[in-house]
């Protein structure tokens, strides 16, 4: 493909000027050549793009918040209070960030299960799946680190419980707890560490993994569910404009949803953390950690001479490794999705049970 000479005149308008420099027409032509299968489950294809769109909202609102946030014990809670009360639209931006985070992880979980239940991780998309699994891990960890930053009573106690839970990870548990806390207790060191992880290390990791994930999706295209592929006759639609317009409609709906939640259900900041005050009653983690919390709560204190929490956390670590290795374990052409449904039922069941308990 020959590169057109940059236009120096304004006669072609802005489009022509830009097209000469960044090849918009070439990009559109590429998008027109991309074909996406169109069938009864094709709505699921929009989950990945929607997750990416919400991530943009999350990053944009996060950058705005970081202009005013101060990560120290003395200032953290006060600076968030300042954002809410003194910064123009600060309360809205903070609520958008919080609700985007919830939605981001929610969409990510839905995306993972949609891929799992349609077995779209099969060869040659193993690496796409592995990258996506790490993205899910990084996203939930990002949610965990971000939760502490307002240094409120709830966030402090949730971090204390969460980091204590990390101590049950086999072999590296004790080290992991100290590493996360930056010492023996949750304090100023933890706050500084979580801030660094939340605004630099984790977003950086997510960006790299996401880039590789998207490159893989573009290279390999989207997968047709095996049940529909077997029947045959699945027609395709060009990504531009058919699928892109659908994506666009979905994104606009999500934008309206997040802004509506931020406007009508703003998140309360709560009291500043006080390590000398006891944890509030009925304290629960964020909804996406609730299934782990509830499971550990139900386990007996002692299982065959091993501490119940250690058994539980070890089980979850093994479960994650299983999910990661899924494309390499399930290599058959027509496999069962029973494990996927079982995992989804367990996740939903324990989350609802934990919510109601």
């Amino acid at each position, binding site marked *: 493909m020959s590169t057109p000479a940059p236009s120096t005149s304004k006669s072609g308008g802005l489009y022509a000027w830009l097209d000469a420099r960044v090849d918009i027409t070439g990009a559109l032509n590429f998008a027109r050549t991309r074909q996406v299968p169109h069938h009864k489950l094709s709505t699921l294809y929009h989950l990945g793009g929607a997750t990416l769109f919400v991530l943009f909202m999350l990053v944009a609102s996060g950058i705005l918040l970081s202009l005013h946030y101060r990560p120290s014990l003395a200032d953290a809670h006060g600076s968030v209070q300042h954002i*809410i009360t003194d910064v123009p639209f600060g309360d809205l931006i903070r609520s958008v960030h919080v609700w985007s985070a919830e939605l981001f992880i929610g969409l990510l979980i839905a995306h993972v299960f949609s891929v799992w239940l349609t077995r779209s991780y099969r060869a040659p998309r193993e690496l796409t799946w592995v990258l996506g699994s790490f993205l899910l891990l990084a996203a939930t960890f990002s949610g965990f680190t971000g939760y502490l930053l307002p240094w409120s009573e709830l966030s402090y106690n949730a971090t204390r419980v969460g980091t204590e839970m990390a101590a049950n990870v086999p072999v590296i548990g004790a080290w992991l707890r100290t590493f996360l806390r930056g010492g023996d207790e949750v304090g100023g060191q933890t706050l500084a560490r979580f801030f660094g992880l939340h605004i630099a290390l984790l977003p950086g990791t997510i960006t790299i993994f996401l880039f590789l994930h998207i490159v893989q999706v573009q290279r390999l295209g989207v997968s047709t569910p095996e049940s529909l592929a077997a029947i045959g006759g699945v027609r395709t639609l060009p990504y531009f*404009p*058919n699928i892109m317009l*659908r994506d666009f*409609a979905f994104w606009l709906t999500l934008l*309206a949803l997040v802004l509506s939640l931020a*406007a009508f259900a*703003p998140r309360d*900041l709560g009291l500043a953390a006080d390590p000398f005050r006891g944890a509030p009653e009925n304290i629960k983690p964020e909804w996406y950690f609730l299934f782990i919390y509830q499971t550990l709560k139900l386990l007996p204190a002692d299982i065959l001479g091993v501490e119940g929490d250690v058994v539980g956390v070890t089980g979850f670590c093994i479960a994650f490794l299983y999910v990661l290795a899924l494309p390499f374990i399930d290599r058959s052409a027509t496999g069962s999705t029973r494990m996927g449904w079982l995992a989804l039922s367990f996740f939903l069941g324990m989350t609802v049970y934990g919510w109601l308990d």
Partner: protein
Amino acid sequence: MAGLISGVLIFGLTFAEPSPPPPEGYCIHCHTQQDERRLAVPTSSIAKSVHAHLEGTCVNCHGGDAREPTKRAHDPRLGFRGKPTTADAPRVCGGCHADAAFIRRFSAKLSVDQLSLYRVSIHGQELERGNLEVATCVSCHRFHDVRHVGDPESPVFPTNVSQTCGGCHGKKGHAATKHSRRNPLEDWSASVHGKAVLEKGDLSAPTCNDCHGDHGASPPGTSDIHLACGQCHSQESAKFMEGPHAEPFDRLGFAQCVECHSNHLVEPASEALLSTTERGVCRKCHKAGTEGAEAAAAMKKILEESRRAADVARTKLMVARTVGLSLPDADVLEAELRTALSRMRVDVHGMEATALDEEAKVVGQLAKRMQASADAATAELELRRKGHVVFVVLVAALVGLILLRIRRLHET
């Protein structure tokens, strides 16, 4: 041969080094192995005691020589007294606790006046008269399992004091309750003070010893009650003593604070105390239509109006907070309002309607500023929400257009 062996053994036993005492000491070592419960139990309970780490723990109270396990340990000539009697307890405990030089070894802050205070207390005086049912040191602190007063398991930890004192003073038919028709333990437990300690775990709220004293326990006299209550309610106490009621109360033998607020069953104070209803206390002396009754009604009216204004402002703030608005200025105003309302309650004790009027004006102004702050924030929120609804409608229209375009694309 046998004689030779016996001789060697006897020689060996006679000249061998004496075996060192067991690490826990002879007393604990032997008593742990006793079958009789009364002799064995102290060894386990002393381990949790604040005295456990002391050298010669047992002999400090029981006497004897702990360096030798049998005869000398229990030799009365070496001071062994066995179980100290009730009458002995203050003297035995005071042997250390009244000795400033000895106590200073552990903490310069520990007081050494317990024994002298006990001797002037009602308990001490009764013991002096030979009443052996009366409380001594061990009644409140236990004997072997003596805990530090800051230990939540100590019988004299604030949350446990009522049960400890109530063990005698809350028992029906006990000599300690014969002078009263009411049960002080039940009354205190139902009071605002009791609920603060027992339900909220507020260790600063008063329990028995805060008013009656601990080692020097005695009921406050009718003219001293303001001193007991004034330890916490100093301003109310001072206002009362400056006010018009102090002199006649003293003259008539009225029990100051207790006359209006009761002694053990102290309820949260409210305007109802100034009313003519059953809860009203002024009516006990001031008959309807008298100057005193009218003054009470005027003060009640001022207090009620101020409280209503404060409630309206607080409700508006609460509504604003419920929808997520954070109002730091209003928080400061609310704190000032709380202080002003407290000052009004203090002024009631001086029976000065003019001072109340001044404070009521302050409360009114603060309440208005709080309402204005809440209203402004709520109005801004409403405006923003209306703008948001417009935005959502526009987005919905745009999504509708996109869906139309998608349908057309499908048709072509």
